[in-house]
């Protein structure tokens, strides 16, 4: 019998080295390999991210499952950190928010709490933030009162409310009563009930501008302002101020309040020089012409010989000069 292993086998085509020689690759083949490599790398990357994420989650859950537990089962709320640009304080915030006992941060409905804060007219804007693990941060922007308004609803006793520059009427909290006492009263406005409060008053930006100019540039005049009437604002664009000295001072909202205040100061200076001619009204709404009305009744009381006219014009110097008048 022959031995099979005696004769060696000839080489077959399967002995040919089939390793890919890059130089044997055509352009098409190289592009195909590049696309394949990119696809492979992309898929490998995605898989690696998935695996990494899974491992991370597993490790986190393994080391401290509470980290992934529901926040509602976390520690109770300990503190409210209030930040404000006004006078509202921590007590007011706690009282307004009325948070339930043992509430956790995640159990709080921040939107509802914000709505609750904004329901107070004094609060202009509010931002609530969860500061983990147990602090609720409340940042508030408050409205500044410009004037006061006396309100009486039905048979209830009248009460004073505050009015901001944007016309919002609100019940001021935590304000210094002395400060509030300096605010002039509003007159000639018609308050409209909206819900539990009142609709914003139109034209308050003009009032605020007048008062701000007066307070900043002529505080001695501002201190005398008692009542500002908006009765003629819509029709004539005029604000009528009653001061301690003059029953009626008319300002034009279309002109610069600073110039008008300068003229007023000038007129009052002139009037003080003539105490026998007490003024009843000053109309600053006509530019350089400032008609004044002299209180004839008072004048007759002061002087038996009433020969002066009941009304007149104070001569005013150059308007530029007045505008530069140093209060």
């Amino acid at each position: 019998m022959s031995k099979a292993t005696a004769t060696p086998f000839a080489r077959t085509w399967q002995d040919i080295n089939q390793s890919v020689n890059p130089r044997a690759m055509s352009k098409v083949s190289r592009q195909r390999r590049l696309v394949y490599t990119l696809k492979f790398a992309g898929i490998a990357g995605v898989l690696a991210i998935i695996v990494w994420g899974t491992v991370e989650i597993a490790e986190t859950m393994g080391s401290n499952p509470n980290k992934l537990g529901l926040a509602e089962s976390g520690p109770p709320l300990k503190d409210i950190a209030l930040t404000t640009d006004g006078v509202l304080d921590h007590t007011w915030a706690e009282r307004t928010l009325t948070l339930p006992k043992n509430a956790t941060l995640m159990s709080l409905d921040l939107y509802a709490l914000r709505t609750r804060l904004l329901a107070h007219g004094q609060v202009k804007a509010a931002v609530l933030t969860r500061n983990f693990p147990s602090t609720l941060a409340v940042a508030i922007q408050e409205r500044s009162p410009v004037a006061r308004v006396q309100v009486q609803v039905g048979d209830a006793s009248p009460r004073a409310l505050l009015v901001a520059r944007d016309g919002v009427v609100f019940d001021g909290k935590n304000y210094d009563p002395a400060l509030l006492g300096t605010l002039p009263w509003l007159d000639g406005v018609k308050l409209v009930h909206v819900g539990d409060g009142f609709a914003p008053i139109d034209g308050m930006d003009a009032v605020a501008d007048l008062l701000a100019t007066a307070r900043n540039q002529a505080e001695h005049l501002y201190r005398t302002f008692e009542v500002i009437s908006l009765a003629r604002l819509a029709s004539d664009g005029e604000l009528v101020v009653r001061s301690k000295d003059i029953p009626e001072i008319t300002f034009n909202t279309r002109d610069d309040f600073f110039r008008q205040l300068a003229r007023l100061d000038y007129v009052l200076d002139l009037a003080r020089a003539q105490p026998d001619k007490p003024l009843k009204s000053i109309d600053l709404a006509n530019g350089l012409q400032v008609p004044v009305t002299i209180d004839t009744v008072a004048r007759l009381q002061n002087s038996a010989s009433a020969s002066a006219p009941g009304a007149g014009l104070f001569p005013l110097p150059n308007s530029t000069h007045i505008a530069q008048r140093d209060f």
Partner: protein
Amino acid sequence: MISNTKIVGAVEIGTTKVTVLVGEIARGRELSIIGVGEASSRGVIKGAVMDFKAASEATHNALLAAEQSAGTRVDEVYLAQTGGHLEGFENEASVNVAAADNTVSAMDTDTVCRLAMAKELPEGRIVVHHIRRPFRLDGRLVPDPEHLVGRRLDVSYWTIHGLESKVADNTHVINGFSVRVTKLILSSLASGALITTAEERHNGVLAIDLGGGTTDFALYRDGCAHKTGVVAVGGGHLTNDLALGLRVQQGQAETLKLRYGRGTVHARDKKDKVMLIGDFSIGDREFPRLTIEQITAARVWEIFEVVRQKLGASFAPEKIPAGVVLTGGTAKLPGITEAAAKVFGTSARLGEVPAWIGENLRDPGYATALGLLHFSLNAQTDRATAPRRSLLSKLFATA
């Protein structure tokens, strides 16, 4: 989970065109052809790669087109091999049955097969196929001698070998596409397996694949390939003959061949003329139809004569009752079956692809690539049905 689907590419790098078919083999037994790619061949002469870069570009373009058509990447490639360098020889071996009771064991068949395959080749040549013919047990043909009783077991192999450099060139063209060649299959075997039935192969049939640069043939007998060969003459030579004989350009000769070429002379009237272009434009000329037919028929006749000579004593008309089956692009030439019938002295017909193959792939030019897919399916089926040996049985087998 390992996918049950395999994407197989069947590649034929021909002299005139590169054909790629992509097949999806599901569960090892269902084949679907899902992609086709073709490109004009460059750098290939008579089935052998002569310009590696040009051949690679053409092949890779066809592969990419097939992959894009299939919408997937090819996992492995079944590559058709042809070329004039391929040769074959027969090698026989015989053993005495070892067992005392003369029952043939697996070891007997293994031994006789190894002996039959063990033959050294000249330097630089490499085996492409070992085709086993049926066993003979005490002279009688048996497909599987194991467990049969007999004294002497014979087997012969038809070994096909070729130049290692040319086979490697073919393989490296595919490797350049970053794909391995899983199986290298002779073109004639690939096309022959498709266009002939198992019964025809058992009775005896001669399959001839007339390509552009080569003509491949496989003679089947007793159900397996008895002899194969390659003639380095193909349809391209018909074109060349026309170009020289009629003094026209290659492209014009190709047009004349496709329009008026025949395998046998049919025209009788010498005055019967045909136009080169047909619209009497500049350069349009007329040629005698008879001359064209004589030129093409002569070359076809010569090709068949060469095939018959190469078959030698193995061929006899009475040994191939199923006749001659023709395929390949040149087989579309009218009258070629008559020529084959006359040369081989037996019936001849054009090969038909199985009915399940789509209309767009029924052209004879796809026969080889389809045959490659047929082989790939069989290979997968063999793998799927092969019995799995346990570790224990492997231990005993090696002991």
